[in-house]
């Protein structure tokens, strides 16, 4: 029954999208964390998606292969009163782009919703199959 594979495929996509949402939440929460656990300013985290075969040759799910640190340079803000300022008076803020993160969040949430809908459609189809010959 190939419809059962749909649950695995859409489920994997939902897991991947919620991990992306997790990364967005972490980035937005730490948008102003000038010191993280390693003493450096926080770096934005991004998830990397990869298509992965899932039972049969037609089902392709998604998985998160790795979580990478954003390579863009930190945001330098002139604030000589800040204790974390360097000798020129600049403070290195995290390289989190808030606008980018917000669009990322909307995209992840929409993708999640679409996958839930696909899952529901598959469920309805299976229930219809069970009802064959019952009426």
């Amino acid at each position: 029954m190939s419809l059962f594979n749909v649950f695995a495929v859409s489920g994997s996509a939902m897991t991947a999208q919620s991990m992306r949402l997790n990364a967005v939440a972490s980035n937005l929460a730490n948008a102003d964390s000038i010191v993280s656990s390693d003493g450096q300013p926080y770096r934005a985290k991004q998830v990397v998606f990869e298509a992965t075969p899932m039972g049969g040759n037609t089902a392709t799910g998604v998985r998160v292969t790795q979580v990478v640190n954003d390579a863009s340079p930190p945001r330098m803000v002139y604030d000589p009163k800040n204790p974390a300022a360097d000798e020129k008076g600049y403070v290195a803020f995290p390289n989190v782009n808030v606008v980018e993160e917000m669009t990322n969040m909307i995209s992840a949430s929409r993708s999640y919703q679409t996958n839930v809908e696909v899952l529901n459609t598959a469920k309805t189809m299976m229930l219809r199959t069970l009802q064959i010959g019952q009426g």
Partner: protein
Amino acid sequence: MSDLSSHMRVLSQALSLRAERHQVLASNIANADTPNYKARDFDFTQAMQSALGGRGLGGLGLARTDSGHQGGAGAGARPQLQYRAEVQSAVDGNTVDMDVERAQISENALQYEILTRLISDRLQGMRTAISSNQS
């Protein structure tokens, strides 16, 4: 009764192809954010014709590993997957067009439901034929 089973075979083959197609479309939607993923689909008419003509590749029939085994007619043949033509190109090499996929998945689910209804009706017809002289 061979007439009934051959009638049912066409419908059940169509049903399993629809289920298979739902899986392919679900994979496309699941991978809507995966870089370099290419959207796939198969031509239902062509797949149905090759399934009915017994020209399917591989097929989903029962394997006979012993002379005592019963040969299953098979619920259908494995369809040829093709890549969907790109409408708008994306920077990350992904060719999933959400509007197309959503429309196709709705259409596919509706066709699936029609098929279940058709099978039910056929069974209902049989039931009427059986009980017509019992009153």
